[in-house]
């Protein structure tokens, strides 16, 4: 269920409970003024005690409403931003994967053409060894480029680890919400999502494949500006 839908449900619940609250007030107004008596399951005071019982029910409902509002605010303030950032990370993973695949395929195409060119050189009556040497050098460059393109794997795995950590955090929060309504709820008793969370030390939440040149330039600028420790 999306956050927006969750909010709608909360608003609808709140509205329904307000209607109940209004109805309860109406019942109380119609009843004679009496002091609420403590409720016990065995105590049977008849309809005259109903307003007091409903009064307590009303107070409990208002308490639940208050906690619902607090929960909604907490979810809204913390979850929305994180989920949006996670969504962006996952989109970047898709994009980085596609970019790497295209780069590798392009390099494969160029390498294949170079192999064809080497075949042509070999087929000549007097093979041009110097030209073949240049083509082989280019072929090695292309193969190396393919390997370099695989760096996306390390970065995207960090992005996915971050996304996984956010989802685990959301799961924990939802379990907390469930317990808010029923402290004895067994949800999460056997399952501890925090145990599944990736080790925060193993990934950078800001890891990205974008703008490597600009980010390298920033690092160079800082190392130039601040004297690096003498090696």
């Amino acid at each position: 269920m999306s956050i927006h839908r969750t909010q709608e449900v909360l608003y609808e619940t709140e509205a329904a409970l307000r209607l109940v609250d209004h109805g309860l007030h109406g019942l109380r107004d119609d009843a004679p003024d009496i002091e609420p008596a403590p409720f016990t399951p065995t105590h049977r005071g008849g309809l005259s005690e109903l307003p007091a019982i409903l009064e307590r029910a009303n107070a409990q409902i208002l308490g639940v409403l208050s906690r619902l509002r607090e929960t909604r605010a907490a979810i809204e303030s913390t979850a929305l931003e994180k989920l949006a950032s996670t969504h962006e990370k996952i989109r970047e993973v898709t994009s980085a994967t596609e970019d790497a695949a295209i780069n590798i395929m392009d390099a494969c195409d160029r390498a294949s053409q170079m192999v064809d060119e080497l075949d042509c050189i070999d087929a000549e009556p007097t093979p041009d060894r110097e030209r073949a040497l240049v083509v082989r050098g280019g072929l090695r460059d292309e193969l190396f480029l393919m390997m370099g393109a695989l760096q996306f794997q390390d970065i995207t795995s960090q992005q996915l680890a971050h996304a996984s950590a956010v989802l685990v955090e959301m799961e924990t929060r939802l379990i907390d919400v469930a317990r808010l309504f029923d402290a004895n709820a067994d949800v999460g008793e056997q399952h501890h999502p925090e145990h599944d969370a990736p080790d925060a030390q193993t990934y950078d939440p800001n890891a990205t494949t974008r703008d490597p040149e600009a980010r390298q330039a920033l690092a160079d600028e800082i190392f130039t500006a601040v004297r690096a420790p003498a090696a």
Partner: protein
Amino acid sequence: MKFLVVDDSATMRRIVVNSLQRIGFTNTVEAGDGQEALARFDASVTFVITDWNMPNMSGTDFTRALRARPDGATVPVLMVTARSVKEDILTAMEAGVNNYIVKPFTPQVLKEKIDALLPAAAA
């Protein structure tokens, strides 16, 4: 020249080691995290290339521990990491890193940074 390459990603270790071979450095030893790197480091290692985010011991903690050792106080340390915000770069410098490469990197950048630190490594 003997390089110690530290990264928890086997893919990245392989890319760095292949890049080193391509620019003429074939003597390498690998480690999957800072703890393993500390265990593998000895006086024969003349250059360290390390990642930042790793399990058990991060690249910055590893560098600090290395700098505290008599045999690791002056060895050149090049950090290769996806982290690239200013605070991170400054933290790496404070830990004792000599230069910094942002992932994804090109072999040219790796060569430039190694070349710049080679005099220190040879000393």
